Every structure is written in C-alpha cells, then in structure tokens.
C-alpha cells in the first residue's frame, strides 16, 4: 500500500461527460483506482478534496464531487482553466489519471445529524456541495429537511442538471434552481441566488446553511443569511486557494493563519469572519 | 553635484502641482551606505530626498512596475503625472520606455540629475565592512568623498564607482523637464575595451567563465524585476503552457533564462547596470549586456534610449541592414 505522501495512485477514468460547454467548460470524471487495496482502503467524507493530475503535466486540487455512499469510485468535476485542468480535459474513458488524498477536513456530518440542511450553490461551486447532498440523501432518516438552492448564469451553465428532478422527489427534499436571465421554457426562478434565498426565506432554527460559489455570490449569500438570523456557527462554506503539496508544507494556500489544505477547505463563518484574507 | 536644498525645494514645488501625483527619488537607507527609493506624496516627504554617489537605484523601473489596482466604481482613474529623479543612465530608460510606448511621455515629469558615477557598494564594503552608522557621500572635483564613522575618506572616482559608470557616455540626462545641478564631463570612451578580455577568449574558455556563474543563479528574478526594460505584462518565465523555461534550477534552465533575457534586451539595454548590482550571487550580467550593446552598435549603428522618437531597433528594417549574422 502506498503511504508516500507525494506518490499518487493510478486510477482509470471509467466515464466522462460534460456538465457545461464553452471556453471554461466543466467536465466530470468518474474514476476507479487501479490498485484494489487502494480502492478498498480509500475513505473520504463530503467536503474533502484530492490532488488529481496527469503524469508529465502536474496536479491540481479538486473537490471530490461524490459521496462515499455512492460506491467505490470517485467523481471530479473540473473546470478547464489552467495547464493541468486542460490536460485533464483531454482524458477519456480508459485513460489514466493520478489521485492522491483525500485532503482537508470534511463537513461535520455527524454533528449535523437531526438538523435541516440548506445548500446554496453557484456555478462550479455546486461540485463540493454535491457530496453532502448525496450523503444526506443516502442517510435521509438521520437528517431533517434538505433544501438545495442552485443557480448559474444560464441554464447551460448549470452542473449536474439531470440530477435535480430525481432529487426533488426524495422525501423532505426540495430543489430550487435559478438562472440570471430569463430563457424560454425555464420553469424555475430567474434572478440571482441570494435573492432566491430570500424568497425561500428558510428558518435558521435547527438549520445548517452551506454555501459555495463565486466570491461575489458568497458575499451576498452571507449577508442574506445574516438577515435571516442564521448564527455564524450554522453557516458553512468551503475555500479554495492555489495548492501544490496538499499536506501543509508548500506554504501557499493560507488565508491568514488558516491553511486551506489542512484547516479547511470546510470552515464555519464563525471561524472565517475573523480571517481578513478569507474572502480576498 | 546638486545642492540638496535646491533639490528639495524643487521637489516640494513639483509635488504641490495639481498635475503631479507622486515624485520618486532617493532617501537615506536604514543603515550604513544604503539608500532607498523614496516616494514623495506630500511636500513634507521631500525633506528626506537626497542625491549622492550612493543613489544607485534606477527609479525608472517604478514607472512600469506600478500595479494597476482596479478603480473603485464611480471613481475616476488618477491620470496625473509621476515625477521622477533620473541620473544619466536612468534617463535613457525613460527614453527607451517612451520610444517603445511602454509609457507615455506626458505621463512623466522628468527631473534630471547629472551624475559623476555611483559607488559600487561591494567595493566599499570590502574596504569598510560592518558599517551600521549612516554614511553620506559626495562628488568633489572628480573624486568621491565619504563621511565614515572613522572620519572622512576620499577616493579617486575610478577606484570606487561601479563598472558601468567607467564606460558611461551619458552622465547627463538625455531627457529632462528640469535639471538640478550642472552638466558633468563625459568620461567614458565610445569603445568596448571593457569586454575585450572576454571576447578574445575562445568559445570553450568563455563557457568556462560563464558556466560557474550561471550555475549559481538562484532564479530569484531580481535582475528581471529591477530592469526598467523588463516590463512585459507576461514574461516568458511565467509561461506555463508551454513552459519555455522550466522552473527547475539547473545549468540548462538557468542558461536558457539568462540568454532569453539577454536577447530580449538586445537593442534595448540602456546599461544602467542594475541587474548586476542586485544579483545576490554576483553574476556579471553587464558583460553579457555590453556584448549585445556592442553588436547592436556595430551592426546597426544604433544606441537605444537616447531619442524618444526613434523607432526601436527590432521593430524596424532597413534595406541596408547587415545580414552577415545570418548563418
């Protein structure tokens, strides 16, 4: 078994599909470790990340976008942006990628048992939220209501599009989608995610709010959650920063005194509000 | 040598003008011989200004190094001029930046400071190490005098100035809106005798000379960052896809880096010597740059940084350009 912290494991891409198209398209990879022992020993929880990469090009820290309850595979949804993500986008079913991790902390799923959960996502920010949604869905009896709020610029920019109608059918679960500008045949909300949140007007009582998305959206969502009287301790978000090692050595991912790779990526607003660099 | 009182008075007058946002000059450093770039934003700031043989920094770098922060919504961008103190070599940087359209001539207010040579701090530190007390220096009748803790010391100029000052042919600013002090005598020769000793060596000997030096390069990029002509928005060094020059620090990538930089400066280097001054591992970069200056001068009869109207060498073509360098 590989215990070397920098030596990645080889995994085979089983399936890929595009979530969105265009210059910064998002492609999802379903991958399985080649080594059976690695596959069997791998454990992760919602919120954690992994260093995935292509040998000869490099690695990139990507949030694991599946719940361990879904099976013995991993899913990553990757936006095409830099050198490594461009190389990852070249991969098709049958190709190899490297995976090491899991890294970082996770959403405190045990602490949250019995509570209502509302996730508020925007764009690619839904990727780290998807595992917690799937996790709660699989353990529905242990949690209260689940509300999924998710928006993007246009309907074509929404990730995991096919999953929401099924999700909405689950008991005590509701899905609210939004796009910024009106489109024909769009049956859902039109406007910005923070405004949709106000329309939903969730109660803060016994409820955890998790938000992830572009910085500007997070900013307004946080403001609105405060308007809805959510205590800081009941608001969670995930941070992302440039990373290289994933294990607190290379130095760069800190936001103030917090290392995103070790202290995060999951933080409560109670922690982050005192970290000036957190929303830089 | 300019009168400091006059310099400060001029600076105060300048910074008080409505069309000037900042004046860049020099002030005494935190210890010993050091001086530091000084950003004058109010008349009071001007009281710290100095100009002496210790003012090594080429401040023209700051004209292109300035970070453009986004203008807050509703606010107007600050389009006022930057005033800048320049020595002869520094002024050539301003001219070359203008000629290349890196900066606009009307965006700078140039205050010329004729210069008789800048002290090479390494030479001074060899003579008087461990000097913590602030030291003042001045030019005096072709010599340089220093008030050291142990008393006054006077050196012939040639003994203590930087190598680039010995070959300098532009001690008087070539561009200036106003000049402080009298023009000084041009002492440097038009030839390139200073690199002759290296040129006469064969390729193997030359590589032996450079190999150790390039090998010790740390790739801290201080040479690039201090260079007033290195102002590309995206440098080849940071290109990742493809990575023309790898980040690995070894003789091959270091050589690629140093050569790429030297070639990018061909016909552009204005010989301020800042790259060599700041190099922490003392790579004699002016040798490399002087060789290119020589080639440019001999092949194309071109001297960069003297005429702001001149077309930069490498963007021009003349039918009678020599072609014998083509193999």
């Amino acid at each position, binding site marked *: 078994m590989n215990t070397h912290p920098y030596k990645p494991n080889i995994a085979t891409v089983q399936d890929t599909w595009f979530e969105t198209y265009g210059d910064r398209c998002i492609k999802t990879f379903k991958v399985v470790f080649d080594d059976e022992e690695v596959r069997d020993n791998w454990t992760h929880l919602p919120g954690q990340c992994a260093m995935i990469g292509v040998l000869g090009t*490099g690695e990139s820290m990507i949030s694991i976008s599946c719940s361990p309850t879904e099976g013995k595979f991993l899913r990553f949804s990757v936006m095409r942006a830099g050198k490594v993500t461009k190389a990852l986008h070249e991969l098709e079913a049958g190709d190899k990628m490297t995976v090491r991790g899991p890294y970082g902390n996770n959403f405190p799923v045990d602490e949250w048992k019995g509570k209502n959960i509302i996730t508020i996502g925007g764009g690619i920010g839904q990727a780290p939220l998807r595992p917690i949604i799937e996790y709660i869905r699989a353990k529905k009896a242990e949690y209260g209501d689940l509300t999924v709020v998710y928006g993007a610029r246009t309907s074509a920019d929404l990730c995991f599009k096919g999953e929401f109608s099924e999700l909405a059918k689950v008991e005590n679960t509701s899905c609210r989608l939004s796009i910024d500008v009106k489109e024909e045949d769009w049956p859902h909300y039109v406007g910005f995610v923070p405004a949709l949140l106000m329309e939903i007007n969730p109660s803060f009582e016994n409820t955890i709010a998790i938000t992830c998305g572009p910085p500007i959206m997070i900013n307004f969502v946080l403001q609105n959650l405060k308007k809805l009287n959510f205590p800081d301790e009941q608001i969670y978000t995930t941070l992302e920063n440039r990373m290289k090692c994933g294990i607190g050595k290379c130095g760069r991912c*800190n936001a103030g005194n917090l290392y995103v790779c070790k202290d995060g990526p999951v933080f409560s607003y109670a922690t982050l509000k005192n970290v000036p660099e957190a929303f830089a | 040598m300019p009168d400091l009182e006059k310099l400060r008075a001029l600076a105060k007058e300048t910074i008080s003008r409505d069309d000037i946002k900042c004046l860049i000059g020099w002030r005494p450093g935190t210890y010993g011989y050091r001086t530091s770039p000084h950003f004058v934003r109010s008349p009071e700031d001007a009281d710290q200004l100095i100009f002496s043989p210790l003012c090594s920094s080429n401040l023209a770098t700051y004209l292109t190094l300035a970070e453009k922060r986004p203008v807050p919504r509703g606010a107007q961008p600050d389009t006022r001029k930057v005033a800048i103190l320049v020595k002869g070599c520094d002024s050539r940087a301003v001219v070359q930046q203008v000629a290349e359209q890196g900066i606009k001539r009307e965006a700078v207010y140039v205050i010329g400071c004729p210069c008789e040579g800048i002290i090479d701090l390494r030479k001074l530190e060899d003579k008087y190490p461990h000097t913590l007390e602030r030291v003042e220096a001045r030019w005096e009748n072709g010599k340089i005098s220093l008030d050291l803790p142990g008393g006054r010391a006077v050196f012939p100029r040639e003994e203590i100035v930087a190598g680039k000052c010995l070959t300098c042919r532009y001690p008087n600013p070539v561009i200036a809106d106003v000049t402080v002090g009298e023009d000084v005598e041009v002492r440097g020769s038009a030839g390139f005798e200073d690199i002759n000793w290296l040129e006469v060596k064969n390729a193997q000997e030359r590589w032996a000379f450079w190999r150790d030096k390039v090998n010790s390069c740390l790739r801290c990029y201080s040479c690039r960052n*201090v260079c007033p002509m290195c102002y590309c928005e995206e440098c080849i060094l940071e290109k990742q896809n493809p990575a023309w020059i790898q*980040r690995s*620090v070894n003789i091959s990538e270091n050589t690629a880096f140093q050569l790429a930089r030297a070639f990018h400066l061909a016909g552009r280097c204005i010989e301020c010597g800042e790259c060599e001054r700041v190099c922490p591992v003392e790579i004699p970069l002016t040798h490399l740059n002087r060789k290119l200056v020589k080639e440019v001068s001999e092949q194309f009869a071109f001297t960069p940084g003297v005429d702001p109207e001149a077309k930069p060498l490498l963007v021009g073509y003349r039918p009678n350009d020599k072609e014998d360098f083509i193999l």
Partner: protein
Amino acid sequence: MKLNKDKLADFLAAIPGKTIFGPQLSGETLKFTPITKTGDLCLTANNTTVPPKSVVFPQTETMLRFEQGATDIRTAEPAGETVLFGIRPCDARAMYIVDNVFFWDVDDPYYLARRTNSTLVGMACLDPCVNCFCTSMGGGPASTEGLDLLLTDLGDSYLLEVLTGKGEMLCQGAGNLLDEASVADKEAAKLLQQKAAGQIRRKIDPSGIPARLPALWESPVWEKVSASCLGCGICTYLCPTCHCFDMQDETEGAESRRYRTWDSCMFPEYTLHASGHNPRPARRERTRNRINHKFSYFVDKFKVIACVGCGRCINLCPVNIDILDILSKVGEEAL
C-alpha cells in the same frame, strides 16, 4: 574537547561515509557545497549568501520519476548521510524551526531523510555582521538549538562542545585527534561568545509583534513598506526559514520527473488561481503575508517566530527593504 586547527583536515577525513558540506566559494558566492580541500573552507567568513537550508531542502529536488505514458512511479532515492560543517547557529536554529513544517502531521519524506541523515557542526559566530539580530529572535552567536556539535574558534584550535548523540558519533572516529579542553579554554570560549553577542548592534523586541499584526491588517504601514518592493525572490529564497515550494513536471526524452523547487510568496504566480483571480494581487498584500507568516501565522501554529535574525534579507534586498524597519513600524503603528 579541543581540536587543533592543524588537525582539521584529519578530523574531517576521519568521518567515514558521509558527504561533508562546508561554506565555500561557488562562483562569487559563499554557500554550502561538498568539501574537497579543507583549504577551500571559509570558516571565518560570516554567513553564507545562500543559507545551508539548500543541503536539507535543495532548491530543486526530484520527487518522482516516471516514463512518459507509463504508470509506474518511482520515488526518488533517499539522500545519503551528510555533515554540515561550520554552520552558523542562526542557520541551525532555522532548520530546527522549519522542522515544524516538514514534520507537521505528515512527515515530508525527502526532508525527513536529508534532515535525519545530517549532522550539524556549528561554528560560533565571533564576528557578527552589521545586520545580525539573532539575539532579538531568541538565538545568539553560540546558540545550540538544532546543532549536534558546536565549535568555537580559540585562535589555534577549536573548542568542541558535543550536544547530541549524533555529535558524539562524529567525534568517535577522531578520538586520537582531539585534546582535552582546559577550564581556561572553556572560559576563553565563553568570553569570546559573550563579546560577540555584545557586538550585535541591531536589536528589536519582537514580543508584542504577533499580537499587533492582526489588528494592523488594513494599516497604511503595508503600503509604505512595500512601495519600493521589486517583487523579486531574494528575501525569501535566501531566508533560512522560508520553506515554500512549487511542484512541477518536466520531461526530457522519454523520462519525466516531478520535482519541487523553492517558491516565493513575493511572486504573483504564487497564489494566482487558474481562473486569473489572485487573492494577493499586489506587493502590499504579498509583503504583508511575508511578515504575517513569520511573526503571526507561524507563531499561531508552532509557537515560535519564523525568523532567526540572520540579516540576509536586509543585506541583500536591492532596495533596502529592512525587516527591522518594518517590525519597528509595526511596533509603533497606532492600533
């Protein structure tokens, strides 16, 4: 114990199977390189330009090797045993501080191998540099943190203080070369060390700094102290406690490797996201991070200031950005 200077070459020769690094000129620069001739050692010179961290944390280090297109990944072979001979106490103390990072929860295997395989033979600093301020940072010209052996130059001989088992091992093979040190020798060494500490003129009391820094986040002081910064890597690359690195892949022919290389928080690319967003967009933010990392974040995490007062960043900054000047401004700035 005492080692006569005549016997230095024999002493080094009596160390079997280890590569001995010492301060030597490489090009124009003093740095720690493998010793071939004892005569090339610069033991009286002050701090090397390049800190000896380069021995345990090389500027560029291969981590993994693999063939292009293959999936067999080989980890780089562990480094052999080394001796750092003539390391200054501040630099040894810096390694002791940096150990915190590389052994934080998960051991860094490359650093671990080099660090455990190295023996640090210190040379007390009897002639401190103009910008040395080790005594303000919890060290001193003869501090022993991180060292296995400490030598003090007594003129004709070195006084040898064995500090650890590793240090003792090193002396074992050279038993017949060492003399007994007299009480007078020890006292002479103590006096020289004290005299050196007294020669250190640059001082600051850093005790209040970690507490002040968070409150000064938006202070104009950062704009002031970074205005002339060129954004080069000198202050970080040559800092013995700076440990940040980048990881890259490189291919030559069919052979590829993943390597790490020193990186600097003063470079824009250090924190640049692939999206183009940069959480530290300018030199103001980057300078603030450098100071906060050393004097606040590191203290939060590891209860020690990540600065040993070696003075390199002051000596070598092209534009005289002086860390003591920054700290004194931080100390004086109204909260």
